[in-house]
């Protein structure tokens, strides 16, 4: 049985239940139960109409759960009056589900968890394993999130930007585990892009595709990070790059620039360079100018200094860096790199070591420590 197909049906089954009058939290639980049952019985006995089967079983689970709760007898009477389960409508409200699961009243972590379960069709256990927390903790995080959005009207359009932030988080901070969260983020963003015509949705999808294309080249066999300039570009996925560039070009043609399109444009310029030396840094600096204008993000300003260093030389990069607050994360790492390019290896080694102490993750710390060590070894020879 195709688990991805099963999971892709999750949002539309859930919205059918909600349309029939089930409250979101109970409907979502019922759909989880139906998914678990499908995983159990479909292998031996696959249904002809997968979605119809899921709707029928989820609705029965919902009625069972409602009946079991004596205190909710009155609502049971109401739901029994609803139309009997039948063929599911072809048009679904999956888009509304995205908005609900990314509702601004939710914390980012809650929105991520709820989106992965209610839209992505992942089980609580899979989500817990992906984020390295106990299943009980993740179950509570999800049920709290459902309580938080319980009063939200299901028929009002939401803010696309909040949905994009959630999907970006799933992609960018996905841990490695049983579930490939980067691939899942791409699947959910594709599904969203098919339902809403918005250049930033396309921009985010392009950004994800272009970065996913480099995945095989990004880490060495020992798990250490390979910087962009040193990656084996022959291992980049050209199909994903072509798709990402195509999606991005169509979005840019709409002339409604946003931060994700700008980030994707930078990734596309890297993808376009056959070797690191042939990178069009001048254009990349221009895109960083757009990006800092759009977001004023400190990360973008730091990366801009790196790009300036490549386009106009390390001195120019250091001058751009001098305008930024030294307390920014990765400031020391960028300064180290620019000093190394400028030939001041002693300062570079000191700054790499300082940056390693402040690194927010292990792979980056090891990478910075290695660079400091290499410079120190070379100098002592």
């Amino acid at each position, binding site marked *: 049985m195709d688990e991805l197909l099963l999971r892709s049906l999750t949002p539309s089954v859930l919205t059918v239940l909600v349309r029939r009058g089930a409250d979101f939290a109970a409907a979502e639980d019922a759909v989880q139960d139906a998914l678990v049952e499908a995983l159990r019985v479909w292998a031996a006995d696959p249904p002809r109409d997968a979605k119809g089967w899921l709707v029928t079983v989820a609705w029965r689970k919902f009625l069972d759960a409602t009946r079991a709760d004596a205190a909710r007898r009155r609502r049971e009477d109401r739901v029994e009056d609803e139309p009997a389960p039948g063929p599911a409508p072809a048009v679904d409200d999956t888009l509304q589900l995205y908005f609900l699961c990314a509702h601004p009243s939710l*914390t980012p972590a809650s929105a991520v968890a709820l989106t992965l379960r209610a839209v992505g069709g992942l089980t609580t256990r899979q989500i817990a394993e992906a984020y390295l927390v106990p299943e009980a903790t993740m179950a509570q995080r999800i049920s709290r999130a459902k309580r938080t959005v319980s009063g939200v009207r299901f028929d009002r359009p939401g803010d696309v930007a909040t949905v994009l932030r959630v999907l970006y988080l799933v992609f960018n*901070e996905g841990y490695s585990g049983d579930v490939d969260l980067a691939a899942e983020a791409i699947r959910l963003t594709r599904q969203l892009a098919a339902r809403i015509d918005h250049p930033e949705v396309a921009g985010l999808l392009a950004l994800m595709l272009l970065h996913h294309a480099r995945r095989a080249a990004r880490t060495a066999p020992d798990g250490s990070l390979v910087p962009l300039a040193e990656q084996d570009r022959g291992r980049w996925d050209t199909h994903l790059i072509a798709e990402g560039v195509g999606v991005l070009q169509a979005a840019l043609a709409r002339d409604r620039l946003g931060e994700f399109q700008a980030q994707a444009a930078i990734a596309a310029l890297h993808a376009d360079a056959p070797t690191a030396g042939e990178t069009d840094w001048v254009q990349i600096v221009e895109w960083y100018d757009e990006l800092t204008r759009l977001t004023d993000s400190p990360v973008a300003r730091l990366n801009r200094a790196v790009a300036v260093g490549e386009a106009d030389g390390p001195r120019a990069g250091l001058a751009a860096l001098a305008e930024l607050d030294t307390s920014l994360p990765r400031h020391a790492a960028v300064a180290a790199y620019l000093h190394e390019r400028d030939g001041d290896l002693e300062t570079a080694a000191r700054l790499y070591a300082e940056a390693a102490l402040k690194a*927010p993750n292990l792979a980056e710390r090891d990478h910075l420590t290695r660079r400091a060590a290499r410079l120190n070894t070379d100098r002592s020879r």
Partner: protein
Amino acid sequence: MAKYLLLKHYRGAPASVNDVPMDQWSPEEISAHVQYMNDFAARLEKTGEFVDGQALAPEGAWVRYDGEGRPPVTDGPFAETKDLIAGWMIIDVDSYERAVELAGELSAAPGAGGKAIHEWLEVRPFLAAPPTITE
């Protein structure tokens, strides 16, 4: 989300405000303290922020490799070691501010006389997985 370690020390932390050793508390005060810790962990599980909590025995040993084919060397415990870890709680929270807020609550566990201990807890961020998008 980011994970933080809330580290509790037997020794090595600055002195707490209510600095009476546990063996001089009343049994009821000890029970109240344990109850507070359990309730705190249960509450964090409900908020979806709990990852792990463990206590360590104070007595341990130092162990090191002693060369090919030889058993490891053990030594200690060294009474003069100034830092001694008592246990930890691991939390998964939205911000550093939230981690500090929770550590503050945990430090308010009751001690002698039923009063808050105000003990110093060490808050340490975990090194996370590297992000995909960096440029």
